[in-house]
């Protein structure tokens, strides 16, 4: 069983910290996404797992064996891993078949075994017709599939993917997301997947690790990351949320633009500043004022309204000039300049961890 475990992993380049004390456990057969903006340390983490670089501190264990530590690092070729590169890294001087069979030849398998494995993987990746082509003669999506086939044919214990879809156009990217997940479910290797695209992470991952400035900000299943962001960074990065800066009144209420909002999440400390996230489509927008004294209602003015087909996107300015985005049903048409009331249900107002 090849679980992958990072223990207090750090990587410094001089004074710059690329990866800062990252601990993470990936069970056998799980698919984990490292998600974050460029420069957050996700690619460095992946290259540490691959063995291309040595950690400055911490350890990497695979299947209970230490593969990387500051004193000893097993080279990439000794790790029984496969990797999909951002550039695909197909060797231009070899045909599709030669590219895919390379890892089998390195493993010194006999001719017949190589042939049968090659045939099977080419058929799984729908590449049989292209076997004798050179990579330069393939489209982007075909190159991607060759890259996948080459990585999978050696039956790795661990598969690493470095932004594998960033060079594809939008349609193909969506198709390949499901393809990657399908192959993962079929072969059940442990997978670490690096991306900056949250939709990609949501559709493929069992677990998402949101990274920022070399640290893991939040680790959890996609639903949890989406519904219950723990920090302002995660709330903003995952998108679709409003983050309100406010002051706590007591352990579960805050004051925003003259109104009181009840919140969930961590308990608050009175008079301390707090950030609260509310998803755009959880906010209800109405022309009528609520009964006075009702909590979780805010007054504002519509400053912009955009029709998006399946929804209508509002920008509402509160009385204290804070702007909120609201996603409403398309049938509800309120013109810009109108005075409106917003209802932010208490169970959707999530107090975030302090930065």
């Amino acid at each position: 069983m090849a679980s992958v475990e990072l223990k207090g992993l750090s990587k410094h380049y001089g004074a710059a910290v690329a990866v800062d004390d990252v601990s993470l456990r990936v069970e056998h057969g799980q698919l984990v996404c490292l998600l974050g903006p460029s420069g957050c340390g996700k690619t460095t983490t992946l290259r540490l797992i691959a063995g291309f670089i040595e950690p400055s501190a911490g350890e990497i264990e695979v299947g209970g064996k230490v593969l990387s530590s500051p004193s000893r690092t097993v080279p990439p070729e000794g790790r029984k891993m496969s990797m999909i590169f951002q550039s695909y890294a197909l060797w231009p001087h070899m045909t599709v078949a030669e590219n895919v069979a390379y890892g089998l030849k390195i493993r010194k398998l006999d001719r017949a075994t190589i042939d049968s494995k090659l045939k099977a993987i080419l058929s799984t990746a729908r590449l049989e017709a292209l076997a004798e082509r050179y990579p330069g003669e393939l489209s982007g999506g075909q190159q991607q599939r060759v890259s996948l086939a080459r990585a999978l044919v050696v039956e790795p214990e661990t598969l690493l993917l470095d932004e594998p879809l960033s060079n594809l156009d939008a349609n193909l990217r969506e198709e390949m997301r499901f393809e990657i997940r399908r192959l993962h479910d079929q072969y059940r290797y442990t997978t670490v997947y690096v991306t900056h695209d949250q939709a990609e992470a949501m559709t493929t991952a069992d677990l998402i690790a949101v990274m920022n400035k070399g640290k893991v900000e939040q680790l959890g299943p996609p639903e949890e990351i989406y519904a219950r962001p723990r920090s302002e960074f995660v709330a903003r990065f995952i998108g679709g949320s409003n983050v309100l800066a406010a002051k706590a009144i007591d352990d579960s209420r805050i004051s925003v633009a003259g109104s009181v909002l009840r919140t969930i999440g961590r308990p608050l400390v009175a008079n301390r500043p707090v950030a609260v996230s509310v998803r755009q489509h959880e906010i209800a927008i109405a022309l009528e004022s609520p009964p006075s004294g009702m909590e979780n209602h805010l007054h504002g003015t519509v400053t912009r309204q955009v029709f998006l087909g399946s929804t209508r996107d509002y920008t509402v300015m509160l009385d204290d000039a804070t702007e909120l985005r609201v996603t409403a049903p398309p049938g509800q048409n309120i013109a810009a300049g109108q005075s409106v009331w917003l209802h932010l249900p208490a169970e959707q107002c999530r107090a975030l961890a302090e930065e």
Partner: protein
Amino acid sequence: MTRSFDLSRPVLAAVTALLAVMIVLPVGWLLVVSLTGKDGGITLANFGALFTDPTFVDPLITTLIIACSVSAICCLVAAPLGWLVARTDMPLARTIRTLVMASLVTPPFVGAIAWEMLAAPNSGLLNQLWRIMTGMPSDEALFDIYSLGGLIFVISCYTFPYVFILVANALDRMPGELEDASSMLGAKTWQTARLITVPLALPVLLAGALVAFLQALNLFGSPAILAIPAGFHTLTTRIWSLFQFPPKPELAAAASVPLLVLTVLLLRAQAMALGRRGYAVLGGKYGAPRPIRLGWLRGPAVALALFVLAMPLFLPYAALFNSAFSRVASRIVGPETITLHNVKFTFLELSSTMPALKNTFLLAIASATLGALLALLIAYIVARKAVRGYRVLGFLATAPLAIPGIVLGVGLFLAYTRPPLALYGTLWILLIAFVTIELPAAYQQLGSAFHAVHPELEEAGRMLGATRLRTLADITAPLLRSAVIATWCFIFVATIRELSAAVILFTSETKVLSVLIFDLKESGDVGAIAVLSLTMVAITTVVIAAANRLHGRPQIRPA
């Protein structure tokens, strides 16, 4: 990278030591000897002599006049020609571009010899033709190639192609949109050319001017052939003359220093000029520029281009073939006077031909192999940052660019005429010289080849279980094969035609082809000179053609 393959320190130490021996030793000795007086103490007397003695000051001034004139002429010829080829609908543009490149195959000293055959005051073919046409007496001459003007002309003939290539390539890459934008704002074709195209090309032209200047500054062959009979010296020929009997190496060393300093400064200036090229002519995917319609000027334009090409190409080769196949070099050969006598004489009777050819091939093959391997190793280390301190290697490998051939010759002479490595008089010293001279270009070629091989291609091999060495053999080597072959051919060709360092370092046992041709000048055997020159050009052409054919083969398309 990983610890399991830690040959890095010994490799770095070995390569650095080798480069130091190749570069630091000769330049160091050059400086030491130039600062040493007759009594062995430190002195500036050698430099004092340099700047007061008219036999040094005059060549310095002459050299500067030549370099400035050559530089100006090259720009005046190459810029319009480059523009005609790259930006207009001139007929035969592709052919003319190829022919200009082809004129670079001619070693400059061979060109100078050919122009002697054409325009020496008495025997020159052009002067004879002129006398026949005008009936002038035999002591009158239209051209005198043995003059400052003649020398400037001949150097320009073989220098302007460098400027031409720079300008034409820059104009090729200049995005057409930049000109289209000007047209959209109402500028006429010629206004756009004047206001947009020319200013954008200016930095490249400046860099070209500096290239021409450097070339003229450090050239040895042409001045040795044309200036010495005319009774004047340039810096390079003066340095060479200090090695004639009685040798004065300390003065030669001192005279080399200004050449070295000037070259370093000019290279810096050139890098600055080209460094600003970025905004001007580096384009990604822009539209192809629209050629300018010349209208009735198309005919005159192509005539002008062919006339220019007659100077380095058509006329000299006509003269060389004439001399090679005629019993008397100064007669124009006809169907009944054509003879193979010179060819037979050169290859069967002339005792120095075969040893020189043998030495030349031996050195060319050894230099090309050694140079390509060394450049490959350094390029790998630098491109993959394989060891700490890789930048030092990159710098050392580029440094010889700043050392003129004749200066390196002097430096190597000083370094290896004494123990522990008394290599003077052996082929080894020539080998060191040739490898050193060609290393920068070879390193740059292979360096850019490595940059074209994405590091992920190697990493993909490692991930699939191949060791670093296995990855190099399976993936990197095949991808670089054509680049390495091209570099090998490049060094081979450059070694065959090298004269300026060889002329300082050869002895009677280690004569090479270029030195043999130069030496035969003394005995005046024009027929043999022509045959040997054509042989050299033929070998060069064959090797370049082979390199070009091989280069196109494996597909290195980014996947």
